[in-house]
């Protein structure tokens, strides 16, 4: 494997006719990093992946490995010469070859000696726990086993970049978890630079060093899992990682402090206090301040786990009416509506909360939300965030 330090994707764009699948995609990958492309179906993540492999030509943009340009949308290094490995959602194992022959496929193309091939195949099969399977055919194996063969087939070639396109989607839930652990262990051990495409946030959070969240062909946010999880930068990302309770409201009061904002917003007939930890200069802070100054509405985002039944000192309190209660063991999932004593003719906003105490349908619930558990976004509701 030719050594390298960085892979750079610069302003990569892919258009199919008049539809733009990937727009202005830029990313720097360090050697050994595990990056996940996360997003819903049709967001462009698979297209972006296939552009990086070279299987799809770029409409514009460039891809570099260190200083070598491997694709500038006019000329490109063909996929078979890039030393990248790809694992497909449906495994793509050659049905007419045994496991051993599948894994050895790339090695044989490189004219390695028979003994060397045998040794490396054996080694990698041990790595994926498939020692006894060398003589089997893919159709004789389960989905999870086939996927392990597919992975083995790639890593035996020591690729510079490993690309996985929703590799666990075709497996059942239990296998998915198992194989996820194996993938994590493999990455810890081999430190192969990896791009992993998925629509499952659990996988992305568990496996990656950094997550790239995509929607409508554009990057929404890039950052380590903790950042994406606790500090989503727009309503779409927030919704995708589990923030619900998107309520529209107007800012009544705003106080700027050195390391954040204290905001009071009015949601229907309720006032909520929120403390946002955005330091000066943070664009998110500026967005909220601008919304306040122009009187534009903002949108909340609150995790259901952060809306708790019962009142607590120092926290916001809300009254809502429980509509639907689902028992889930530790907590119950409660769908409620904000109580609206003098309603303006509309229904109260929907509240998605968790309760560790029993709640009956139609019961009035006093809920509290800590002030630092509310996110605010100036753009409005998630669907409208597509720019």
């Amino acid at each position, binding site marked *: 494997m030719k050594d390298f330090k960085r892979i750079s994707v610069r302003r990569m764009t892919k258009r199919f006719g008049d539809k733009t699948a990937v727009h202005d995609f830029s990313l720097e990958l360090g050697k050994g990093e595990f990056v996940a492309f996360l997003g819903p179906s049709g967001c462009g993540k698979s297209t972006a992946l296939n552009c990086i*492999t070279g*299987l799809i030509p770029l409409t514009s943009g460039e891809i570099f490995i260190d200083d070598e340009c491997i694709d500038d949308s006019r000329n490109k290094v*063909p*996929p*078979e*010469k890039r*030393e*990248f*490995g*790809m694992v*497909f959602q*449906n*495994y*793509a*194992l*050659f*049905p*007419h*070859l*045994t496991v051993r022959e599948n894994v050895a*496929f*790339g090695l044989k*193309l*490189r004219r390695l000696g028979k003994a060397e091939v045998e040794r490396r195949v054996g080694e990698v099969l041990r790595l994926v726990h498939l020692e006894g399977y060398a003589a089997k*055919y*893919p*159709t*004789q194996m389960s989905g999870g086993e086939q996927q392990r063969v*597919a992975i083995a*087939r*790639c890593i035996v*070639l020591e690729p510079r970049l490993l690309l996985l396109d929703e590799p666990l989607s075709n497996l059942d839930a239990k296998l998915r978890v198992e194989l996820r652990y194996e993938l994590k262990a493999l990455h810890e051990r081999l430190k192969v630079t990896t791009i992993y495409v998925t629509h499952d946030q659990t996988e992305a959070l568990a496996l990656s060093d950094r997550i790239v969240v995509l929607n409508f062909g554009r990057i929404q946010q890039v950052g380590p899992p903790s950042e994406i999880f606790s500090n989503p930068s727009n309503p779409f990302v927030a919704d995708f990682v589990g923030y619900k309770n998107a309520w529209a409201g107007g800012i009544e009061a705003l106080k700027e402090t050195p390391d954040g904002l204290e905001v009071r917003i009015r949601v229907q007939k309720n006032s909520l206090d929120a403390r946002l930890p955005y330091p000066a200069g943070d664009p998110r802070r500026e967005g909220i301040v601008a919304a306040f100054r122009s009187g534009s509405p903002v949108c909340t985002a609150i995790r259901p786990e952060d809306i708790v039944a019962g009142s607590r000192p120092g926290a916001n309190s809300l009254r809502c009416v429980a509509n639907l209660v689902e028992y889930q063991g530790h907590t119950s999932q409660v769908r409620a509506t904000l109580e609206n004593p003098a309603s303006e003719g509309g229904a109260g906003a929907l509240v998605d909360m968790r309760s560790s105490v029993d709640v009956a349908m139609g019961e009035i619930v006093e809920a509290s939300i800590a002030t630092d558990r509310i996110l605010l976004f100036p753009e409005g509701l998630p669907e409208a965030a597509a720019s």
Partner: protein
Amino acid sequence: MRGAARGSYLYLLVPALVFIILLFLYPFFYGLYLSLTKANGTFTLTNYARFFSDARDFRTVWTTLSIAVPVTFVNVGLAIPFAYHMRRGLRGEKLISFFLIVPITLGTVLVSEGMLTFMGPNGWLNQLLIVLRIAREPVRFTHNYLGVVISLGLQGFPYAFLMLLGYVSGISPDLEKASQMLGASRIQTFWRVLFPLMVPGIAISFCLNFVMAFSVFPSAVLLGQPSGPTRVISIAAYQWAFEKFNFNAASAISMVMAAIELVVIGIILAWRGRMYKGASIVGKG
């Protein structure tokens, strides 16, 4: 569920079984019987002996093989790259497929008849060749070996092509992509991945094409020289049956035809068995 259900399915097969036995197996074995007897019913091998010893008749085997084997190789051999090229669809695919179907639909007789005019010494093809300076005088396309071969090619190629196209388009494109990512060039991907998976289709294509070519009759008569260079084995059988009215001899020849075909098919299937050791499911993942 097994026993009762299976019994109840059997009666559905009865019409087809009756049909096959009555209209195929019975005639076939009757033919076998005829081939081994004289007109009066006594057992004899003279029918076969006569066929193998009569130079003119025996030569038909070689003649027919020398037409059928090369034609089949060419038909299937050409069909492979064409099917490969069109596997992901092509502009004008519908139109091309339509033209491919036409000779099959029209049948041998019309194609042969048409070729006599179109490819005759004064026909358009020769006129074109002379105008394009490809030939200096009319090329003999008809009433010879070439004519028969062309006719078989025009009809056999579409068959082989369409069959192989169906096969090759059924191979998941991800397999090609995977091969590429593992470092294979286009040619390597073809020989190591696509071709092995096409083998069953190629084998069947070859068998059916060969059967068609080996049984050739109307084109050999109309387009060839049935009394000489293109006297194929079906002509010999026909003549013994309907011109000399010796059905025993004719049946012997029919049996020889069937035997040769079965041998060739056996060879093809053996080749296929050796090539394709793996599972029989073509990868859709």
